[in-house]
């Protein structure tokens, strides 16, 4: 009972916070702050005469991004591709695992602790193994992305599948609803906003996974560009690649947030 009231309250807070005008004002300030930081950066580099190898000016980074746009964009597509494949896999695997866990007490007792324990394995450390098994191409990166980001999806999906009030289940059982009916009509739709919220978290991890994968061994990708540019002390190109990653990651996260808010408007899971 209390839990329900709390959630209602949280939802209400969101509503008032999320009013369009306020959101705009917030974003405008953030944008101004970012511009201020970039300007300060530019000025400080000029005033103190910092060498470009140490810290290039923002305008220089922008210039490099434009000069090297063909190289950067070509490699960005590769990284994006790895991210999306790994992410899609993690959604499928994550939901499947959650369904298995929720539907079988045995799996809940055996599989779930294993998944949780796996969280303690630094996934980055598994990266080199993946290269041995899968080579230095896209496959090893996508699987690393999967390993890095399936966990929040499993946890959220399992929570959403389980978070159905016992009264609702009793009501359905009294009507002799089958397990399948309860799953498709109540559990899965109930889990939907939870899954979307898990996907939002997973998306931020996915980009990290792909870059780390590319650091370990790669033929293409922005991570590889960063490694090569670093070796050549081409700091401006390193930063140009990072800037592109920021843009890519931001866009992916914004897309996921948008999907989460539009596809499941009835409830926002924090």
């Amino acid at each position, binding site marked *: *009972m209390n839990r329900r009231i709390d959630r209602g309250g949280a939802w209400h807070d969101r509503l008032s916070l999320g009013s369009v005008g306020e959101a705009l004002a917030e974003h405008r300030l953030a944008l101004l702050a970012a511009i201020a930081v970039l300007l300060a950066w530019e000025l400080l580099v000029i005033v103190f005469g910092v060498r470009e190898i140490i810290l290039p000016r923002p305008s220089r980074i922008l210039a490099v991004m434009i000069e090297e746009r063909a190289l950067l964009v070509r490699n960005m597509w590769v990284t994006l591709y790895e991210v999306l494949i790994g992410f899609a896999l993690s959604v499928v695997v994550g939901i499947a695992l959650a369904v298995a866990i929720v539907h079988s007490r045995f799996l809940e007792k055996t599989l779930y602790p294993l998944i949780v324990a796996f969280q303690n394995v630094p996934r980055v450390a598994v990266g080199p193994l993946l290269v041995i098994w899968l080579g230095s191409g896209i496959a090893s990166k996508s699987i690393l992305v999967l390993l890095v980001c399936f966990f929040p999806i499993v946890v959220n999906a399992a929570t959403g599948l389980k978070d159905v009030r016992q009264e609702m289940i*009793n009501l359905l059982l*009294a009507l002799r609803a089958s397990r399948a009916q309860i799953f498709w009509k109540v559990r899965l*739709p109930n889990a939907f906003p939870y899954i979307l919220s898990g996907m939002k978290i997973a998306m931020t991890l996915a980009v990290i996974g792909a870059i780390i994968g590319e650091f370990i061994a790669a033929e293409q990708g922005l991570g590889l560009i960063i490694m090569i540019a670093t070796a050549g002390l081409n700091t401006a190109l390193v930063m140009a690649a990072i800037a592109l990653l920021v843009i890519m990651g931001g866009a992916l996260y914004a897309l996921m947030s948008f999907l989460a808010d539009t596809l499941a408007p*009835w409830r926002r899971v924090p």
Partner: protein
Amino acid sequence: MLENLLDIELLTKTYFPERKGPLTALKDLNFSVADGELVSLVGPSGCGKSTFINLACGIAQPTSGRILLRGRPITEPIKDVGIAFQAPILLEWRTVLTNVLLPIEILERKVRPSHREHARKLIKLVGLAGFEDAYPRELSGGMQQRVSICRALIHDPSFLLMDEPFGALDAMTRDKMNKELLRIWDEAKKTLIFITHNIAEAVFLSDRVVVLTGRPGTVRGIVRIDSPRPRDPTGSEFKSIEARIRDLIGEAHEDADR
């Protein structure tokens, strides 16, 4: 003489939780409910009301004793019951109309236009016409509870079980909903078992009030109320019936019952 719809005979339910002693929720419960009757169960917390609901809709089985529905013991989920709980527990992603139709989706292969028509009629009956396509979050608590009553009625069950359906509402909405419930009960012509902690509510609504004791739940007494409806909660007759029920429940539980 009306035939009994439900006969509750020496109904006992004992749970055997792990690592704890056995827990008797209901003990030798004995009463009947006539067809079309409105019976309230009143008792303190721990009088086994959830247990009774689970037994009455057949999703749990008694340790001993039995519940007969039109003379036949309930031994499995009976489909033939409509349930409304204290919380409306509507599905947030469904509109009012599709929430009401949920039991039909479970029971029938297909939702037919006739079902939709029936749902619209019920929605109108509870005073929510025009809200068919609204989502639960757009409705007040009282309105949500009306939707859950529609859902309980949609498959035309033999009887309704209501577990403190207005317990979470404010006092004014609650009074209003009680009047509405009487009207709905009158029009839908359903047997209604109404569980509440609120003695005044029970007196206002019921043909008979079954007073239960706490842990384990047993019948302390049954009070028949013949005064015509609508009843005036400020009247002396009402007050004296209230007092009688309060006496039955006993001094010890008075605080818990407000």
